[in-house]
């Protein structure tokens, strides 16, 4: 699935990463706890989170996430956006809550990280 499809399924805004819309993403994981993300993350993951500070981007960078989707209409803070630009990690914001965002992506065939 491309990032563009993910953007459409989640009716998300792209905050950074227009150039990455054709990037392919095969699986996703969701958590607000960065230690959990560090424990289950795999390279190439799409990270869904409600945590909007710089640690969300740093964690995504450490686990080599493909992109981040902030749920429930949250927008990351300035520092996080700057860091995402520096690291080349696209970030999106979706109005959907975490459960629905994950459900929508899963029902469209995007696998969970544990299935990879």
């Amino acid at each position: 699935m491309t990032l563009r499809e993910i953007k459409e399924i989640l009716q998300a805004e792209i905050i950074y990463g227009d150039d990455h819309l054709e990037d392919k993403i095969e699986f996703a994981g969701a958590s607000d706890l960065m230690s959990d993300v560090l424990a289950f993350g795999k390279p190439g993951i799409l990270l869904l989170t409600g945590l909007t500070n710089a640690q969300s981007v740093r964690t995504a960078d450490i686990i080599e996430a493909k992109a981040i989707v902030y749920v429930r209409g949250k927008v990351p803070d300035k520092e996080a956006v700057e860091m995402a630009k520096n690291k080349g990690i696209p970030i999106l914001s979706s109005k959907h809550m975490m459960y629905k965002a994950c459900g929508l992506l899963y029902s469209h065939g995007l696998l969970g990280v544990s299935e990879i």
Partner: protein
Amino acid sequence: MFYQCFEIEGKDFGNAGNVSTQIKEILQEIGIDPPIIRRAAIAAYEAEMNVVMYADRGKLILSLTPRKLHFKVEDEGPGIEDIDLAMQEGYSTATEEMREMGFGAGMGLPNIKKNADQFDISSTVGKGTLLNIVFFLDQKKK
């Protein structure tokens, strides 16, 4: 042999994670195997966050030989009373501020241990904590 010492300031949440990001970049430049870099970066990040969250100050000393990568993480702070308990997944003494950062889920030390090839921890209450985290470069773990 490559050696570098990074200072970590306690409670400096604004810069939390900077050291790990630098370490990841250094290891990439040197050309360490990407799966090892990933495990090392996760361990360094968790260890750095622990110093930021709980200690007054600390340092992470990176040493690299052809065979192994070693992080020595030493802090001055309250120390850990019960290490066995601290090593349990889910056990945490984190404050609300730490949880707001996305940390304090009680996964830090277990995550470090899981990612390392060798790990040991010692602590003196009222003084501080010492971690030794080792990755072997010439073999793949598990």
